């Protein structure tokens, strides 16, 4: 997707799995709508994650907005204390370190990567599949999550031969409905 676009995306969309998802759909000749929808749905988790840390972020709305951008899975997980509350210093500090590494790492990869030739000969397509698998395993902390993953994977598998790239991923979000809890 081009070196400059990759770096700009890392700087403005600080959320790896969504970036990989968008790149994955685009490289499979998927549409703009499918790529963007898959990525944004993947980031929909930041709504509840953001709400969970909202009470520890201080200052005016603009400052809270900026601090909220530093929340990613890793900084959020690091800052969670055993009693379920969050440490603001750890959240912001880890977020800043991760952000810096992420943007410089993307720049290094994008500039170095263009000299490497065909990414598939390096197994990069399998690397993305493995990355998603590794991220998935990190998300599995209940039987319900296993069911959601199985439904999502099955829907995607069933749709791949029949729909444009990206559509199977969007349809697979139906798996999240297992999260519905009765009152």
């Amino acid at each position, binding site marked *: 997707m081009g070196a400059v676009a990759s770096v700009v995306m890392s700087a403005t969309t600080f959320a790896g799995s969504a970036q990989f998802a968008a790149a994955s759909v685009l490289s499979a000749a998927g549409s703009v709508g499918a790529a963007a929808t898959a*990525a944004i749905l993947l980031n929909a988790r930041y709504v509840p994650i953001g709400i969970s840390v909202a009470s520890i972020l201080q200052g005016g709305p603009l400052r809270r907005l900026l601090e909220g951008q530093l929340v990613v899975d890793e900084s959020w997980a690091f800052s969670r204390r055993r009693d379920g509350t969050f440490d603001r210093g750890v959240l912001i500090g880890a977020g800043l370190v991760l952000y810096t590494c992420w943007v410089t790492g993307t720049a290094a990869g994008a500039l170095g990567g263009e000299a490497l030739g065909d990414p598939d000969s390096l197994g990069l397509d399998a690397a993305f599949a493995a990355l998603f698998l590794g991220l998935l395993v990190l998300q599995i902390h209940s039987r319900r999550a296993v069911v959601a993953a199985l439904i999502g994977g099955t829907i995607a598998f069933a749709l791949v031969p029949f729909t444009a790239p990206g559509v199977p991923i969007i349809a697979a979000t139906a798996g999240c409905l297992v999260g519905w809890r009765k009152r």
Partner: protein
Amino acid sequence: MSRRLEKALSSTWLVVSIVAAGTIVCKAIGPVLLGGRTLSPQLAGIVDMLPPALLAALVVTQAVGADRKFVFDERLLGIVAAIVAIRLRAPLLVIVVAAAGVTALARLL
């Protein structure tokens, strides 16, 4: 610049802008609007299950998917390597490198 390349470039930038705006909004909603409040348990439960469902779909499409067809190739060997690495509780980077390395090696042979 050919028209096709131009189109591909602009769709990349369109995705980059839309995803950036969407992500910033998703991350901002809690801190800016709902300080201290929480989602209803029903909604929270559903949003909680979005990442597993989506990531499983991404594994499937990235491992065996192509444009409206399945392609079963060396990627599967990489996935096997990744599963072994996951079972050994290797860090994410090792999992990814193992999958890429095994796949690249299989393509070389």
